[in-house]
Structure formats: C-alpha cells, structure tokens
C-alpha cells in the first residue's frame, strides 16, 4: 500500500502547512490498527491527540455546578423578594415622615407670629400672676389719662392767654 500521501501530510503537518481537515485525516489514519513501521513513531503523537480530546468532566461536576448556580440565583431572588415585600412599608413611612415634617413646619410658622397685648406674655410665662397683669394694665391706663390731662391743661393755658 502506498503511504506517500500520508508521508506528505506528516511533512506538511510539522511545517504547519496542513489544514484542519488534513490534520483530522492524519489522526483518523493513525487511530486504525495497521500502521507501517516507518511511520510508527508518529502514531503515538496522533493517537495521543485523539485520546486527549475525549477528556470530560463527569456528571458529578455538573450536579455540583447546578447546585452552586441555583444557590447563587436563589440568594439573588431572595434579596429581590425582601425588597419587594418591604416596599409598601417604606412608602408608608416616607408619607408619614413628609406629613410630620409639613405639620411641624406649619405649627412653627403659626407659633412665630408677632405678639399682641399681654396674652402672649401669659403664653410665654404662665407663672405671671393675673393680679400683676391687671396692675400693669392699670398703670398703662393711668399714664394715658395723665397725658390727656396735660394736653387738656395746655389747651386751657392757651385759652387763658387769648
């Protein structure tokens, strides 16, 4: 049998001139039993190449990987579901916080209005005795009365001068 073609392919293989198909022909040729003695040294190489492509990871590895991936995906889903579960609560809390803030701000703005009369004094210091307040009102009234008298006497004087 003429093995010239195979010999040429081997030569081209080591020169990196073979195509993927030609390299596959070499592997197929050497995987069969009848290999001429002059090419026997190459048989080990091409048989080795064929056998190496059959190395696989078993089903045990697959099962372990699937379990790992499911565990990781499960953890991710759990985080999402917890977040989803508490979303309405967070919304309610935010609304309450807004209402409280607005209410507080409104209350403060009403409380800071300019004071009028003595009512605010009692509001600020409720311990001021009512008697003292009425005394203060009397003093104020007396002062106003005195002013009026002075004005009156002045007008009398003017009248007298005329």
């Amino acid at each position: 049998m003429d093995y010239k073609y195979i010999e040429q392919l081997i030569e081209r293989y080591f020169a990196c001139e073979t195509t993927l198909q030609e390299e596959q022909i070499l592997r197929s040729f050497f995987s069969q039993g009848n290999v001429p003695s002059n090419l026997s040294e190459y048989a080990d190489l091409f048989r080795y190449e064929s056998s190496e492509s059959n190395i696989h990871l078993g089903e045990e590895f697959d099962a372990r990987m699937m379990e790992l991936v499911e565990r990781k995906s499960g953890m991710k889903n759990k985080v999402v579901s917890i977040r989803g579960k508490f979303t309405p609560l967070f919304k309610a809390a935010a609304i309450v916080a807004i209402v409280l803030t607005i209410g507080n701000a409104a209350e403060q703005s009403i409380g800071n209005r300019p004071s009028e009369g003595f009512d605010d004094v009692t509001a600020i210091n409720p311990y001021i005795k009512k008697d003292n307040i009425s005394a203060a009102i009397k003093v104020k009234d007396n002062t106003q009365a005195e002013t009026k008298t002075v004005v009156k006497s002045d007008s009398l004087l003017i009248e007298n001068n005329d």
Partner: protein
Amino acid sequence: MDFQHDILPLKDIIFRTALRITMNREESEDIVQDILLKLWQQRDELETVSNLEAFALTSARNLAIDRISKHEQKNISLIEETHDREDVWQMSAHDCMERDERQSNIASAIATLPEKQRTVLQLRDIEGKAYKEIAEIIGITESDVKVNLFRARGFLKEKLNFLKRDK
C-alpha cells in the same frame, strides 16, 4: 442566557485547556467552576459577546497562568528554588499513570514546552481550532500562532525521533 444550555457545555474545553496549563486536575476543575460561575454572573453583559467560547478560554487561560505563578511564588518561598523542565517532566509523567508508557512520553514532552506553545498546540491539535480563533483566544497574531505551533511540533518531532532511536 441559560446556564445548562449555553454555559455548562463549555466545561470540557475549559477543563482540558486549564489542565494543559496547570497540569493539575483539581486546580483545573476549580478554574472551570470559577469561570462558569463568572460567566453566569456576567450573563447580561455577555449577550453582546460574539464568541462566548473564545471569551471563556481567554479568561480560563489568564486564571490558570495566574494560579501557576502564585504556586511558583509559594514554591520559591518554601524551597527557594524553581522547578526546572526535568521536574515538570517527572511530575507530568506521574500524573499520566493510567496511559500507556508511550502516550505518557508524549504527554511529558508536551509538558516541558513553554506555556504559550503548549496552549497553542492544545487548541490546534486537540481542540481543532482555526489559527484565527487561537489568535483571538491568546491575544497574539495569527503568524505568532503559527510560529509557536511550528516550534512545539518541531520539538515533539525531535522527541519522537529520539524515542525511536532509544527503543
């Protein structure tokens, strides 16, 4: 993107590539696990990636090289010497106990190659990848892929001739 249909089928090619670099089964399995989980976690961003397998292999290679360099640093600090090529030869031969002796010799010879040549050889002669795709995975030009492959195959040819004379 579905894990079982789109990501999990990449496990074997990632494993074989990582195994060629680390030459350690346990470490390679760990790399596959890390890469597959990473792909799953980044699945939304990966929708735009045109070649998911090439992306996964690039990541796996980078991770495998990183793990090797970490182990080498550890070894240097412990025994204050690096493994020479002969050590790797012995280690790899030991790992290939189940194969026959001649197959082990091939495995051992490949194990002595520099990492880039080893990975190029793996992707071309075992995974059957085109030069263009190998260039994309490793991040080098197609002509550099050919140069690395030429050196790797040339080295193996010498070894095979040496083994024949030795018989």
